[in-house]
């Protein structure tokens, strides 16, 4: 017999109401990354070369810049969610775990900021 009230079951929320947050965000970012990564791979392969002039001309396109920023943000968030679970599974010592998770969080924030900054710098024309 379940002790949960019918209302609680209908609302679908767990006791803390945010138990599924990590799981759901991982799925949302996964779904978003399907088209984003396909676009990125196909676009890179479609470029005639990867020299500076070609790549910057490509990145100056509004859609390219927009999608690249989305790719960097969603990929770093998805990566952060995934790596966090791996550390939680395989680093049992609480101290080492906290330190590792902190370092990885900072690293992912740095990657996201650097990626967005780089795309914006080129797209907005500051990159020579």
């Amino acid at each position: 017999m379940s002790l949960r009230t019918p209302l609680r079951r209908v609302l679908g929320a767990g006791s803390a109401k945010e138990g599924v947050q990590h799981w759901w965000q991982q799925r949302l970012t996964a779904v978003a990354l399907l088209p984003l990564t396909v676009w990125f791979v196909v676009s890179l392969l479609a470029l005639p070369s990867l020299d500076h002039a070609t790549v910057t001309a490509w990145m100056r396109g509004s859609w390219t810049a927009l999608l690249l920023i989305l790719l960097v943000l969603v990929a770093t968030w998805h990566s952060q969610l995934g790596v966090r679970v791996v550390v939680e599974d395989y680093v049992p010592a609480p101290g080492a775990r906290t330190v590792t998770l902190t370092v990885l969080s900072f690293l992912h924030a740095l990657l996201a900021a650097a990626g967005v900054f780089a795309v914006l710098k080129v797209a907005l024309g500051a990159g020579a």
Partner: protein
Amino acid sequence: MPARPLSPHLSVYKMSRYSLATSILNRFAGVALSAGLLLLVYWLMSVAAGAGTQARAAQLLSLPVMKLVYGACIAAFCYHFVAGIRHLVWDTGRGLERSQSQRSAYLVVAVSIALTLLLAYCAFVLKGHAS
């Protein structure tokens, strides 16, 4: 560490079981792609820093050993992509029967190998981008 057994018990299972192999491979691929993100952002930053810096970064990025890295990234991406779709299908409650998941395990491996070969061919042979 507590004296009791701790999850996940990596060493007590037969890794030849298809479900375990596909699952842990997905994790390895995901972690490898996280490392690949470093490469992507490094490349974006080098482009943003200007033609001279990008040319210097390109010297590093076109070292022979980098071909191995790109090959690994391509394989990891293809596997994680296909295995991820399998997980998303599972999340809808479909394909969870043992026979179905066994079939999809082989399908994931076959499709991701085919996709890896195709992408590697495009990147290394057709375009020479990665060289």
